[in-house]
């Protein structure tokens, strides 16, 4: 409980930094008055741009952390991450098709990415349901890789054959970022993600059992097939929504659950909230760095998550070995 409270404090500090810092340097007093009063000069920046952006980064980071933890338990593979199941390939293909079909961009790109991701998920799911209604985790892994590779190939073909020189910018969008955050985007994501979050948290006990092995889980009285399907559907829905709002942000979903497990070895009942808080706080800080290190220019947030996260994680790995 202490540790969860510590992580919650970390998340709160991260959010404070995220709202306090940005591409425009504002003194703390101005940030505060911008937050408190709608007519303050900084309120446009703090209330309409920074606050929704920090909150969205927090929710997306938390979602990726939770999905990563759940999928690692589901396929019993430490390399599992939210994009494993063909999602990133499908999302990329959707985005590229939208840009190729209607140069000019706008809202349809995130929507198309979402549709592409969901199409890939359905395809992977169909391929993985073997012998009746059993969902085989090993086949799931392979099907995810195969569908992802196929989607990437189609995407490359579309780019080569298309007449839109702007297509390279599709990759920029896919690299991830929270530039398009607003209260509306945040509201959409909140409304949409409540159910998948609730499903995953409710399945925490089943995930503990699944992590032990399917047979054990079955003996201990879990409806293994139902649990696997629900975890898969919920994690896919949540990841697809995060791709639609902010592109493909690597590394958070892979490393945050491992980092939490390294700090202490909680059951999923605690691992999922811990991954949520750690992933959210981490992504808010990464996005703040992305906005500030080369201001007024911005870095793709995925670059920051890898640049900062990899060394951090390497240190964690070494420390636990010693």
């Amino acid at each position: 409980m202490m540790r969860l409270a510590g992580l919650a404090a970390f998340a709160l500090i991260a959010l404070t930094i995220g709202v306090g810092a940005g591409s425009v340097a504002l003194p703390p007093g101005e940030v505060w008055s911008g937050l408190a009063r709608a007519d303050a000069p900084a309120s446009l920046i703090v209330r309409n741009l920074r606050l929704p952006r920090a909150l969205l980064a927090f929710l997306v980071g938390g979602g990726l952390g939770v999905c990563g933890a759940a999928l690692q338990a589901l396929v019993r593979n430490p390399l599992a991450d939210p994009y494993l199941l063909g999602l990133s390939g499908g999302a990329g293909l959707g985005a590229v098709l939208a840009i190729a079909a209607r140069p000019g961009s706008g809202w349809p790109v995130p929507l198309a990415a979402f549709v592409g991701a969901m199409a890939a998920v359905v395809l992977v799911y169909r391929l993985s349901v073997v012998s009746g209604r059993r969902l085989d985790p090993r086949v799931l892994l392979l099907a995810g890789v195969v569908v992802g590779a196929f989607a990437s190939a189609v995407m490359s073909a579309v780019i080569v054959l298309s007449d839109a020189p702007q297509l390279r910018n599709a990759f920029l969008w896919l690299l991830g970022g929270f530039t398009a955050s607003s209260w509306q985007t945040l509201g959409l994501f909140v409304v949409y993600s409540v159910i998948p979050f609730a499903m995953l948290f409710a399945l925490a006990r089943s995930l503990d059992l699944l992590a032990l092995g399917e047979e054990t889980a079955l003996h201990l009285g879990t409806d293994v097939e139902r649990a696997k399907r629900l975890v898969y559907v919920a994690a896919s829905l949540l990841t697809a929504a995060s791709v639609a709002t902010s592109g493909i942000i690597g590394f958070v979903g892979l490393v945050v659950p491992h980092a939490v497990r390294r700090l202490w070895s909680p059951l999923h009942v605690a691992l999922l909230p811990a991954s949520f808080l750690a992933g959210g706080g981490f992504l808010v800080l990464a996005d703040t760095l992305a906005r500030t290190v080369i201001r007024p220019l911005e870095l793709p947030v995925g670059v920051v998550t890898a640049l900062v996260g990899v060394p951090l994680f390497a240190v964690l790995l070494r420390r636990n070995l010693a």
Partner: protein
Amino acid sequence: MGGAITILRPVPIFPERAFVFSALRWITAAAFTVGLGGCAAEPARGPIVVVDDAGDTVRLARPASRVASLIPATTELLFAMGRGGNVVGRTRWCDWPAAAARVPDLGDGIVPNLEAIAAVRPDLVLLYHSAQNAAAADRLRSLGMPVVQVRSDLLADVPRIAGLLGRLLGASAAADSLARTFDAELAAASVRPPSDPPRIFILVWEQPPITVGRGSYLSEIIERAGGRNVYADLPASSGQISVESVVARDPDAVFTSSDTIPGFARRPEWQAVRAVRDRRFIHASGSEFSRPGPRSPAAIGRLADRIRGLPR
């Protein structure tokens, strides 16, 4: 005065040539108002030797007559010099003049299709100078096709490259007259900077938002048309920025390459930008706004009209 001549004069190669060359480009930009008169004096006798923007010395035994022009800007220049008949290949992006459409389309200019180039048997290949094209340039040379790599990014490149093409094709008189006309038109089209110029935000891509800094063609033509680029302080020619910094810079208008109210203008986070809220856009589609060439003075003139028309 001497800048352009120095660049085009045959010189022995030495390693720092590329650096000197790019430094001279900037000096040349300043010297252009004076003109390029000296180029024509040199008759095309014997082998033609030029140093291109990659720093490579290129020798031609005789003036080029079959040119594969894999840069839209050089295609425009060759046609404007009256040498469109010597263009045997172009990129798929070469959309001006209309006559260029009759020239065989060889595909992309970056990472070009070598077979398509070889098929039109050029005696000169013009390639955009970039790291991605280095391998193609080497390969074309090893196949016996002379390659000249040029960078055409800014207004100052137009007369400079015209001079270079004039030498390569033995058409220096036409090139010099083009360069003189260009300089005169440019000077006539350019607006004297007002004391309080409208501050313009150039949005080249919406998601993520990408703008251009001072080292870019768009920034140049907007400044010459009497506006000021709000991101002129950016060192990079282009970069991704956040809406927050646009709000802080509070531009008077947004430059967009779309003809209609762009899609981003309806997105909620952009309403924080005053110029977007007030729907103050400068629309400029058309390739003359994206590449320096003979049409640039006309493009500046049209931009100047739109900038003058902004409500103050």
